[in-house]
């Protein structure tokens, strides 16, 4: 459903994302993790068409996100780190716009908002909502209509425990509904709980990918899968540290070549 084929992005010659291959099947949940500047948001934004790749191709439901962008986005639900609309935007206007472009009845959209606990805020401006309310609004809009690919960039940011639970529910429902879900997060416990596969990115490069057990093995951590809580933070630290060393090694090699 989502396919990245040697997808790459650089800014002024500086690579933000090195060629990345990834497939997310219908009903599958894949998480992108990594420190800031790893290329997680860049990957998601290329898929939404808001950033143009400098190499490779990406597809959503078989549609190339660059050459067939509108068709690709027809199947896409996206939650960005910021609302991505002016703060003065009235919620009802935004809901009606999303309903119209996704071909969903306005009443259905309003109901989705009520389900998110924002039924009484239709006349408010987005800037009048708290950070958590804004996040709930944008999640409700991202999952509105027949979404085949759901992209979420830091979905639990600004949310309290109840809001985080709603995010987990939204991801589970999207998975059950047959959507391919790709999300970026620093919330490693959510990642371990929700994701079928995890991709660890460091400085634009994939360090490891697979299930938690695969990552534990890659990190050289012995993990008996019987305990409920996997040592995800320890696995993450080892892999990120290894990725940073590898990136530093590449950089010094480049410098030696240049010298």
């Amino acid at each position, binding site marked *: 459903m989502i396919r990245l084929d040697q997808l790459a992005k650089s800014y002024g010659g500086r690579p933000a994302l090195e060629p990345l291959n990834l497939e997310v099947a219908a009903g599958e949940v894949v998480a992108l993790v990594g420190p800031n500047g790893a290329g997680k948001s860049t990957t998601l*934004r290329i898929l*939404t*068409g*808001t*950033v*143009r790749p400098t190499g490779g191709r990406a597809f959503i439901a078989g549609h190339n996100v660059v050459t067939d*962008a*509108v*068709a690709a*986005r*027809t199947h*896409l639900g*996206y939650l*960005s780190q*910021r*609302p*991505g*609309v*002016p703060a*003065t*935007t*009235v919620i009802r*206007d*935004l809901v*009606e*716009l*999303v309903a*119209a*472009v*996704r071909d969903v009845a306005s009443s259905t959209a309003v109901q989705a908002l009520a389900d998110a606990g924002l039924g009484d805020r239709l006349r408010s401006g987005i800037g009048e909502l708290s950070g958590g309310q804004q996040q709930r609004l*944008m999640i409700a*809009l991202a999952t509105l209509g027949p979404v085949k690919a759901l992209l979420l960039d830091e979905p639990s940011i600004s949310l309290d425990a109840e809001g985080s639970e709603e995010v987990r529910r939204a991801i589970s429902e999207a998975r059950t509904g047959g959507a391919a879900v790709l999300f970026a997060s620093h919330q490693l416990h959510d990642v371990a709980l929700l994701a079928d596969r995890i991709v660890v990115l460091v400085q634009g490069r994939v360090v490891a990918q697979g299930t938690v057990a695969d990552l534990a093995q890659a990190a050289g951590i012995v993990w008996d899968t019987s305990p409920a809580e996997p040592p995800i933070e320890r696995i993450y630290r080892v892999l990120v540290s290894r990725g940073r060393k590898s990136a530093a090694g590449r950089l010094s090699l480049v410098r030696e070549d240049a010298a």
Partner: protein
Amino acid sequence: MTPTLALCRFELSAALRGRTAPYFAAGFGLAGLTVALVGLSAGGVLAVQGFARTSVSLLELIVWVVPILALISGAVAGADCHELEFTASLPLRRHAIVFSRWAASTLTLGAAVLLGLGSAGLVIGMLAGSADGWRYLRLIGVALLVLSATLALGLWIGVAAHSRFKAVGVAVAVWFALVIGVDLAAIGALAVLPPGEAGPWLSVLLMASPVNSARALGLSLFHTDVVAGPTGAALRAVLGQAGAWALTAALIGWTVVPLGLAGRRFSRSDL
């Protein structure tokens, strides 16, 4: 409802909630009434002057004020396009986002011009009679054409500049160039070119700026070569009665081309 139409409705709703349009309407209404009232005071007469005199006096105000307002509004709207990450992730073409912003601004500011000058026109009509009222109506048409063109130009500037601050700075510089630069070029052309050959070049220069096109189109309402100046007179000599149509086409071109360029630029931009 098509997605583009839904987007236009969304942008229009946002533009109508803006605070500036009512001030513009009040400003244009006051300007119209003031010009009508003080126009005859230099001759020692305190009376409301009719539509013909008021239209001539208002024309200069329109070709100076409308473009600066529209260029700045368009530049801000264009720069803000880069903040629309959510809208850009919807199944909509980037061109449609730029077009809807232009349409919403044109409708809102156009309504402000129409409301302001229209209400001033009603007062003038009641106090000074309706003679030459059609000239006043056509003057409003010229204001709407130059508004549409300079809004499109402003949007292109804003989309290319990315930041609001830079966009407004460039918009003001472009306004100076359009208002003064083309006049200076015309003076230069008159000084350099032999008198018989200047006409076609001056006509082209007239269309090289939407401000000058609007001024010449406005003056063509009065059928006088004296007030039209050298470029207007040259246009009449070269194109005759078709000059007004050529100027209208130039203003429409000044809307369509920058709008297309803004859409193209935005389509290739990272947000």
